[in-house]
């Protein structure tokens, strides 16, 4: 039996471009990469429905059980624990797993606020103009403290503070008095210093990086009598971010 021509699927798309690699020096002529392998793509059900046919707001207000989240998250931690050597390692891994979620949630948040009249990004629903990408640190942090937290946990975070120490002007703190990720998760005894909120720290880091604010984010247990699992997320912005912040301040960019 004769095989179909290998490039048959490309024939109809003569306008399809080829991908090329980027060069570090942008003034240099970009290199050609070989034409990408034509793909038939994935099989789809007979109704032809794919992820592209599902409205992004479909599950916007859908609910699930807190127990399901706790079970899944607990398994995620237990599984990760078996593949690492210590708490630091484990927190790093949880952070890394949260990071890509931050990038996704960022795009989802902005999509939702452009596609609906009541913006997911502004606390007042009066403004209907498309939202702006955060250019300044404070705008970014408000985005995390409010809209991001509401998307994930259905409420805002409890506090947002700037470091008072003159040595660390690049440090900001976001506080959650009762993080969902710590509430129902039973941490193994030998791991009692572990803060599962490292996962959320990773999400925050993804949001910061995505917006062009290089940062390191870590989660710290800061219990009070009233809030035994109170967690502070320490956001430390990189030097380049602080430099840019000064320039933008001078230029009056908000």
């Amino acid at each position, binding site marked *: 039996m004769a095989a179909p021509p290998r490039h048959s699927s490309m024939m109809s798309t003569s306008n399809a471009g080829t991908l090329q690699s980027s060069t570090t020096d942008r003034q240099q002529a970009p290199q050609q990469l070989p034409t990408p392998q034509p793909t038939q793509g*994935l*099989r789809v059900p007979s109704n032809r429905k794919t992820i592209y046919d599902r409205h992004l707001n479909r599950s*916007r207000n859908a609910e699930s*059980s807190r127990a399901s989240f706790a079970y899944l998250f607990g*398994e995620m931690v237990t599984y990760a624990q078996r593949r690492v050597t210590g708490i630091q390692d484990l927190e790093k891994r949880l952070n890394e*797993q949260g990071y*890509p979620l931050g990038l996704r949630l960022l795009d989802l948040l902005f999509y939702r606020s452009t596609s609906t009249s009541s913006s997911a990004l502004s606390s007042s629903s009066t403004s209907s103009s498309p939202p702006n990408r955060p250019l300044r640190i404070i705008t970014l942090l408000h985005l995390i403290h409010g809209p991001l937290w509401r*998307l994930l*946990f259905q409420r805002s975070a409890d506090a947002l503070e700037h470091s008072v120490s003159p040595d660390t002007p690049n440090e900001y703190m976001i506080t959650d008095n009762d993080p*969902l990720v710590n509430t129902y998760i039973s941490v193994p005894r030998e791991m009692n210093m572990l803060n599962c909120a490292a996962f959320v720290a990773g999400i925050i880091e993804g949001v910061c990086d995505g917006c062009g604010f290089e940062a390191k984010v870590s989660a710290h247990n800061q219990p009070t009598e009233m809030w035994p699992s109170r967690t502070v997320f320490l956001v430390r912005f990189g030097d380049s971010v602080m430099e840019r912040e000064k320039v933008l301040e001078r230029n009056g960019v908000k």
Partner: protein
Amino acid sequence: MSTTKASRIGEEIWKTRIDKVNAELVTLTYGTIVAQLCQDYDSDYQQVNQQLDKMGYNIGMRLIEDFLAKSGVGRCANFRDTADMIAKVGFKIFLNVAPTVTNWASDNNQFSLIFDENPLADFVELPDDGRAQDELWFSNILCGVLRGALEMVQMQIEAHFVSDVLRGDDTTEMRVSLVRYIEDEMPPEEE
């Protein structure tokens, strides 16, 4: 107990006794788990399926207690009742969906769950690597959950997916078979 009665119980518990979270948080967390497994096992999807089933088993063993406490239901009279209880109460109160119970085998020991909605798989497109659609059962954790939970109430079952819309099938269907009632043994110790 009838299917409608089970549905009513499920709805009632969901409305009154369940702490809720944003469904997308559950979806995204599960997606993260599966993607991580695929990475760790270097896209050996058989292994990923197994690992998901194992995770589900661990969850199921703990979840059953929660289920019994919240639902307050007693022992099921037969496997048909068990099926309704799983679909209309169990799935409802944990995932807020109620799959259809169908395709009973003539001996009443085997049925299918058809998922019109599967919150675990929202937003998901399997890797286009020529294998994932043939080998990966994305929601396989659910099979393990049923196996673990039912074992704790003296039912040994076998569960596996036979189709999945993520693979290009028209339905998402899980097949559940009763292997035996574990009557003559002590239940495994808790925790």
